[in-house]
């Protein structure tokens, strides 16, 4: 085995020591980390730039949209007010109790041998109240009066709720009645009528759209 002499050993040792200098290695490490951090920072700056340009384009779109939006806000209030007024007027119009129709229907069911002497009626808080009185003639005047009462009840039951038709009085009348030349007995009657005429919102709306 040949003998080798290393005359540069000390210099090499110094070189190794220099290379393994913790301050130098540490600084290199720090530099590497700083480079990584700078890269990350720059990447995030890119994100900031993208967000800024997105915001700018959105703001531009908003600038274009804003006048239409302001106009729409005003118009919405106008339209809502208009609709509320139209709905309220329709409800007012369709919520009426039509006396013309009621009187016509009532006239149609008054028996031929009866005559009404007075009629009064009122509508308040969706409640119809009527009172009517008259005379009725026939072989069985009380029976005819009852038929008239049930006829009124049927008429109102078809349209309204909580209908009550009751006799306030029903008395035999001593006055002679003559029907088709024949004497017959008669009675005086007085009736009260009550009914709930409130309409559901659906009914009012249906009538409103129909009108």
């Amino acid at each position: 085995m040949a003998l080798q002499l290393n005359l540069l050993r000390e210099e090499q040792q110094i070189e190794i020591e220099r290379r393994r200098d913790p301050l130098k290695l540490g600084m290199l490490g720090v530099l590497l980390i700083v480079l990584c951090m700078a890269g990350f920072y720059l990447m995030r700056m890119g994100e900031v730039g993208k967000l800024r340009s997105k915001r700018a384009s959105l703001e531009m779109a908003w600038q274009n949209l804003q006048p239409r939006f302001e106009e729409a806000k005003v118009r919405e209030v106008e339209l809502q007010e208009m609709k509320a007024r139209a709905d309220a007027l329709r409800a007012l119009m369709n919520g009426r109790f039509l006396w013309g129709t009621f009187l016509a229907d009532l006239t149609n069911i008054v028996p031929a041998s009866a005559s009404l002497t007075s009629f009064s009626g009122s509508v308040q808080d969706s409640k119809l109240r009527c009172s009517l009185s008259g005379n009725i003639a026939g072989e069985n005047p009380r029976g005819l009066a009852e038929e008239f009462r049930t006829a009124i009840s049927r008429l109102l039951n078809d349209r309204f709720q909580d209908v009550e038709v009751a006799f306030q009085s029903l008395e035999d009348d001593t006055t002679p009645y003559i029907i088709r030349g024949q004497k017959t007995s008669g009675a005086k009657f007085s009736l009260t009528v009550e009914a709930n005429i409130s309409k559901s919102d659906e009914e009012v709306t249906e009538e409103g759209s129909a009108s």
Partner: protein
Amino acid sequence: MNKDKIQKIIATLLVMIVILYSYYTFLLQPQGAKILDLKKKIAAIEEETRKAQGLILRVQSMEEQGAEASDFLQKADEFFPTGAPIAWFPPMMRAFFERQGIEKVTISSKGSESLGGEGLQGLERLVWDIQMPAVDFLKAGIAIAGLENEQPFASISSISIERTNDDLAFQRVGFELHFTDKKD
């Protein structure tokens, strides 16, 4: 490891800590706050834009109903004459009943009241007492039906029909009429 090396390692670590702290405090944190702020602003603009577009579309769809309501209100306006009601209402009613063949009608005001509720602002209810001292019941009935048809904002709140003692062919008819009108 000698003392010099330990000192160098500690110095390096200190430098590292200072750099990391400065990086986080002076660069990363403000940048993060900026990103968060931008994202918030973008979300707010997007939300506002979405709301605005929704409202614009809603108003466009409401326009159809609005046209129908406007048409209805225009027609309704024709039933609200201008001027003091006492000046136009009695002649209008008298003319109406004359057209129906009913004369000698007395019309008197029983006051007025404001209408409340949504959509009824600016409207009032005029209360009128209408009396027909002697009228054929059928004629009166037809006239009442005609009045209710011709005047959609008139409603009868109470009515009374009585036989007159003078002539059995005629009745005394009276009713209270509520007439909706615009306030002056």
